[in-house]
């Protein structure tokens, strides 16, 4: 697929949004400069804030969750655990009497401030579950993007640096993976590898693997252009080992555009994992995952309690939007041609 490949190369962030990042400029652009530029752009700034906020919440929920776990060890300690002022427990189903299943949000008749987004059919505080959902989404997004990034970097840099049949072999294999719709590939992977009991960790690996191709492709095309640069020639002439050349020169030089792509990719990943959970192949109950919450909400409560469908969707939307805005901002900052 010669032509396909060259088209796929165009898929790198610059091209997808119009033209590749100017070589000479990019290599000289530092991170400090990029961040300064992102900060100057209002939309990118909003993106940065959303991303920071969601990550903060996720980290916060992680701490909170550990606290709860520690304190929930025995029944008698349970009351103490309730003293945690921030959130309810995300998965604990309130015992009889305490539970008010399917309570509407606070601004609707019958809602109360103690459950600002209402409760789920089990009587759990929906706000808590939404907040904890960020933890799952963000960690899944980061982890699987990291897998894709690392895998893609290894494959892409080897393919690009050595060229020839190694390049052919690696890139053809990678294209093959790309040809299967990611969602389908990930489900097949998740279900088969997990032996029919899918869970979020398999999904993370599956998503990571499914996105190796895109990263491999970007890295490779960067490597191809960096490879020809004089100082690489010089390093090679000076007898520096290939591995070291790749590690010290080629990869750092390809870093900036890849990071842009990775940022945008986190959004895509969260979207895919949400779909996966929605079909029941991602996070499993009672994990407070947005996709999983939507699955339950859609399956049984779409009509009786539409709020259950609305909140997780909005949470996904805002989170992904944050990553997209931030990624766009990074990209604009790195590409002088798309300048307002």
């Amino acid at each position, binding site marked *: *697929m*010669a*032509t*396909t490949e*060259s*088209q*796929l190369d*165009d*898929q790198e962030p610059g*091209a*997808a*949004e*119009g*033209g590749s990042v100017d070589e000479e400029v990019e290599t000289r652009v530092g991170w400090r400069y990029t961040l300064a530029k992102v900060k100057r752009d209002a939309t990118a700034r909003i993106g940065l804030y959303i991303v920071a906020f969601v990550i903060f919440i996720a980290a916060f929920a992680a701490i909170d969750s550990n606290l709860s776990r520690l304190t929930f060890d025995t029944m008698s300690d349970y009351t103490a655990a309730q003293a945690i002022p921030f959130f309810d427990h995300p998965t604990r189903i309130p015992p009889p009497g305490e539970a008010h299943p399917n309570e509407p949000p606070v601004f609707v008749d019958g809602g109360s401030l103690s459950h600002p987004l209402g409760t789920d059919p089990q009587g759990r505080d929906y706000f808590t579950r939404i907040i904890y959902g960020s933890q799952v989404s963000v960690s899944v997004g980061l982890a699987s993007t990291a897998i894709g990034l690392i895998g893609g970097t290894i494959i892409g840099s080897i393919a690009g640096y050595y060229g020839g049949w190694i390049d052919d072999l690696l890139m*053809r*294999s990678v*294209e*093959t*993976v*790309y*040809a*299967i*719709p*990611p*969602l*389908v*590939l990930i*489900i*097949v992977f998740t*279900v*088969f*590898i997990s*032996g*029919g009991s899918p869970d979020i960790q398999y999904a993370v690996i599956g998503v990571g693997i499914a996105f190796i191709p895109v990263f491999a492709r970007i890295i490779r095309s960067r490597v191809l252009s960096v490879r020809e640069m004089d100082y690489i020639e010089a390093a090679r002439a000076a007898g520096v080992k290939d591995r070291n050349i790749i590690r010290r020169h080629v990869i750092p030089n390809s870093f900036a555009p890849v990071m842009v792509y990775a940022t945008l990719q986190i*959004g895509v990943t969260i*979207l*895919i994992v949400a*779909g996966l959970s*929605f*079909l029941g*192949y991602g996070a499993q109950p009672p994990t407070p995952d947005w*996709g999983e919450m*939507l699955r339950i909400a*859609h399956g049984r409560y*779409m*009509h009786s309690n*539409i709020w259950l*469908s609305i909140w*997780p*969707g909005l949470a*996904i*939307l*805002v989170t*992904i*939007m944050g990553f*997209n*805005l931030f990624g766009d901002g990074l990209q604009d900052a790195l590409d002088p*041609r*798309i300048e*307002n």
Partner: protein
Amino acid sequence: MGLLRYTIYRLLQAIPVLIGISIITFVLANLAPGDPVRLMLQGQQADEELIRTIEQRYGLDQPLHVRYWNYMTGLVQGDLGYSIHRRRPVSDLMLERAGPTLLLVLSAYLFAIVTAIPLGIIAAKRRNEPTDHISRIVALIGVSTPSFWIGIMLIIVFAVRLGVLPSAGLVYPWQPPEAAGHGSYLEHWTETIRHLILPMIALGTLQMATLMRVERTQMIESLQEEYVKLARAYGVPERTILRKHAFRSAQLPIITIIGLNLSTALGGAVLVETVFAINGIGRLFVEAIQQLDYQLIMGITMVLGFMFVVGVVITDISYAYIDPRVTYGERE
């Protein structure tokens, strides 16, 4: 190279990819725990003899590479295997289910193209004006929203609350009206469209948003091209410049992206078909996974991969058609 020869050449190039897909799915399916024969018997008590008979019938007693070889020889003859669970040839199921999926995906694309291109052009033309900002926000929301959630919201609003559009299923235009219980072709096709609208929007929004973003940047770039400046300098009206001079070359990346996004769209069809109860390949896939119907899962993966490859070839060909610089075979 002529168009036909180019097409054949490109399709031949796709063969290694298809072989690759078959290896991936085959390996995945056979690494999996669980025994297809046991599954087929669905928990019924079966003696060893019966299991062996079934294994023999489906060639499951052979070593892996022999099974792969058998599978591939079957594949060459258009035999995608046999769905143990459904007791039907996989290729029959595929033929049956490909129609709805294609109908859905193509109409989603149509929706995406028809809305994204004019909006993208307007945004590019009125860059940094309110129109541009609004369309950018719309595009941003579009790329950030899960298709299935859009589907759910659309059903709640349009099918349930307003009751103006159907919430599930499709009406197939290729069927005679009687099969769907319609009196006339007019009614039949009206129903086809009514049923398509919501799933089409749910699946098409992401594509629309992506295309709109690309269209906008491409048009902005294109409007800065020297030849556009030249056209302006020669008194070509702005409208002609937008519609002709800047437009055509700006579409080239769009075509590429349409082709490549086919993969996302086919994946999205799995979700949208589930939400809208559409009997396409996507839903069949979900069912096959639930039933761990190995042959069917492999068949679906192969067919989806094949659809993607064909889609890319088609876009390649139209690319070559629109961009005179691309000769069939290689670029200058």
